[in-house]
């Protein structure tokens, strides 16, 4: 870039563009929310039938156009903003240099070199040091954003240039500054031109998988550009507590918040303490981008060949298939599993409004997470809930089957709303740890079986703390932390974390042990600990297996009477074999006793809970 161009540029002109894309992005966001939260929501509430379904689906697709516009225009706005800031910086330095040239009486040439007159002390012959022309070296120019100590710079330059003509030194400095300004501006231009070029609007209205996958790449490219030019994007406090994170977020300007969501949706989506709205916004972006990317990866896998072939009279697996399977088999399975989880989340979004289900908030999402995926999804906005349940699913949970847990939390929400219709409830699925993949890991010689709980506990503790921070403090909501199967072990471990687990009640289903030997060690008081266990073979296997593996302290697990927890009646689990996952189901034509009991705990109606017997040690 020529320095004249830089001098002539009006960064304020870029402001106008920034305003335009901000307006477009905000509009996209509001429109998408209106279509999802009001139009489609109401259609599901009041209309039914195939035509209504088809119509609602079209509303969903239209919403996709707005979501896409929001994402893309948001990125454009952020990029132009950073481009503008870099250009403004460079331009200021340039103007300072040009002004300096005027003052010093040196001439800036069209090519940026600086001509200086003869000047300085006369020598023996009465001649002054000659004039000349200095050519700028951008590397020696005045530091722009992120420059080091100015004094050191000045000294450095003096050391480089030595001349008897003081104007020569000045001219060199000015030429260097001009060169540096031009260099910085050129760099910004060259960095952002390709990034902005990527952000042209699609030429059709079908927001495809590729469009979302590209948006993900656009985000990465934008982030890279911002890093390259040292853009000023505020960072959250390092290792901040949820309270620190919330303060940081609340202190940001709206533009900065939007930029942060646009460039770092991962971070916003997982910062405990941030408002649920912001986390949901960021994670929905991430969900769309991840889905697009994974769908494309799946389509790129060549078609699976016929598995079986006949050789003479014998059926065997074909060589083609075996070759394919070796190369793609696992990858395809993994992709399908992750997509199944994404579909389950989308299915929940598509249920809002139907049959009275509230809005869903995606507070955490990652296809991989700690290994088997990450899904944190709330029914209803937890920031405003009077009663909150944070539920940790158990063994074998992964992206492929997370839908089951989401459905259970829907059922818990409905039962809790029925139990207390005048106070808002939010039930949250918290799946952000790596659970054991199968029960046999309780078999000896596998080492420390508490490992998964120890790894997962800190994240759970931070999340619950973050939820309460976002709510406005521990007293804003009555909080129940719930754990199923190995999830209960994570809960138990979390109570031992620094700061403790800020829960009012703790309830567990089919627990193999909570790392403590008595309910009173969990920090909420034994009368606030609730356990239920199905008298079915699979549930017994989990519980007793856990006891053997030492998941309870001193071999004590929650459904043992001496543990001192309230033991809820599991109801009629007529299946003698399978009961471990049935706590939220209706059983054999009756409503679930355990579900209704858990709902009453959730809303704090303790005397409506159906207990097996009074709690052991109640009269202590």
């Amino acid at each position: 870039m020529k320095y004249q161009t830089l001098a002539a540029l009006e960064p304020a002109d870029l402001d106008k563009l920034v305003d335009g894309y901000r307006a477009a992005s905000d509009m996209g966001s509001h429109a998408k929310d209106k279509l999802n939260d009001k139009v489609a929501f109401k259609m599901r509430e009041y209309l039914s039938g195939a035509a209504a379904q088809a119509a609602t689906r079209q509303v969903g697709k239209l919403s996709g156009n707005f979501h896409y516009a929001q994402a893309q225009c948001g990125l454009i706005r952020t990029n132009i903003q950073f481009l503008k800031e870099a250009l403004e910086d460079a331009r200021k330095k340039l103007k300072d240099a040009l002004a300096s040239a005027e003052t010093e009486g040196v001439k800036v040439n069209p090519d940026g070199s600086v001509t200086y007159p003869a000047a300085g002390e006369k020598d023996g012959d009465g001649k002054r040091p000659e004039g000349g022309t200095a050519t700028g070296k951008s590397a020696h120019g005045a530091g722009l954003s992120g420059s080091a100590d100015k004094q050191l710079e000045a000294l450095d330059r003096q050391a480089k240039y030595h001349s008897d003509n003081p104007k020569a030194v000045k001219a060199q400095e000015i030429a260097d500054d001009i060169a540096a300004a031009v260099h910085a501006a050129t760099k910004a231009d060259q960095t952002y031109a390709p990034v902005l070029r990527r952000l042209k609007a699609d030429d059709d209205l079908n927001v495809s998988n590729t469009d979302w996958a590209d948006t993900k790449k656009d985000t990465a490219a934008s982030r890279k550009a911002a890093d390259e030019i040292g853009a000023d994007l505020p960072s959250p406090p390092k290792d901040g507590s949820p309270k620190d994170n919330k303060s940081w977020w609340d202190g940001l300007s709206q533009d900065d918040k939007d930029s942060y969501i646009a460039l770092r949706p991962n971070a916003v989506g997982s910062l405990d303490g941030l408002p649920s709205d912001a986390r949901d916004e960021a994670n929905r972006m991430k969900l769309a981008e991840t889905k697009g990317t994974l769908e494309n990866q799946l389509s790129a896998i060549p078609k699976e060949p016929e598995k079986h072939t006949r050789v003479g009279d014998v059926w065997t697996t074909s060589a083609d298939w075996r070759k394919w399977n070796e190369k793609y088999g696992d990858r395809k399975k993994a992709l399908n599993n992750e997509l199944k989880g994404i579909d389950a989340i989308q299915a929940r979004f598509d249920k809002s409004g139907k049959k009275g289900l509230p809005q869903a908030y995606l507070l955490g999402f990652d296809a991989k997470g700690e290994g088997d995926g990450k899904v944190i999804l709330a029914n209803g906005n937890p920031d405003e809930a009077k009663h909150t349940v944070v539920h940790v699913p158990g063994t074998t949970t992964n992206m492929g089957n997370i839908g089951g847990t989401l459905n259970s939390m829907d059922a818990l929400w409905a039962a809790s709303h029925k139990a207390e219709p005048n106070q808002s409830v939010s039930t949250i699925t918290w799946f952000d740890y790596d659970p054991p993949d199968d029960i046999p890991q309780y078999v000896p010689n596998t080492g420390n079986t508490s490992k998964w709980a120890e790894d997962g506990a800190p994240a759970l503790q931070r999340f619950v703390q973050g939820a309460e921070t976002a709510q406005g403090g521990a007293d804003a909501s009555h909080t129940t932390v719930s754990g199923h199967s190995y999830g209960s072990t994570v809960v138990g471990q979390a109570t031992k974390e620094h700061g403790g687990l800020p829960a009012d009640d703790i309830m567990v289903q089919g627990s193999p042990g909570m790392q403590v030997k008595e309910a009173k060690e969990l920090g909420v008081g034994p009368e606030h600990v609730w356990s239920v266990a199905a008298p079915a073979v699979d549930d017994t296997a989990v519980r007793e297996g856990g006891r053997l593996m030492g998941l309870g302290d001193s071999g004590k697990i929650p459904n043992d009477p001496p543990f001192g927890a309230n033991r809820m009646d599991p109801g009629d689990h007529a299946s003698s074999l399978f009961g471990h996952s049935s706590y939220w189901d209706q059983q054999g034509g009756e409503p679930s006793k355990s579900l209704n009991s858990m709902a009453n705990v959730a809303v704090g109606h303790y005397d409506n809970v159906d207990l097996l017997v009074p709690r052991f040690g109640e009269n202590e």
Partner: protein
Amino acid sequence: MAHTHSSIYDVIGAPRSSPDDTGLQLASSTGGGEDPWGGEGIKSDKKSWNNASSGVSSLKESIGKARSKMHPPGKGLEADDFECGSVLGDLHTSWKEYLGKVSGRCNTLADRLTKAGSDHYKNDQARRDAFTKLNDRYKDTEGRGPKDHKGSER
């Protein structure tokens, strides 16, 4: 099993509140005499279709407002040696056009939603087809996308 209208279903004092984020929804029966939970048939009332239609239609205005704030980069940003200048020009054109098309989509959908609430379509099947056919209208144009998937940067 037919059941007769009963004023018992009328619920006093609770207008249909809009579903708020707290999930607290106080229900009342719609229009008096209907089952609070929708009963056994297909729910299809004109008011609901029209509400959906006006919700979609209102977005045209929002788009218009946003578009009016979008300006092409001015002369001050036009220079041979300022690459972003021309890129910003292309960006502007593409997004103004895109939002215009989305506005058109709102129009078409709103129209079909209104028709669905009236006697326009013969039956529910025809009504359904009116919406599923929209998929054909907005197909993906592969390969004509502005994003260069081959070579250049990345």
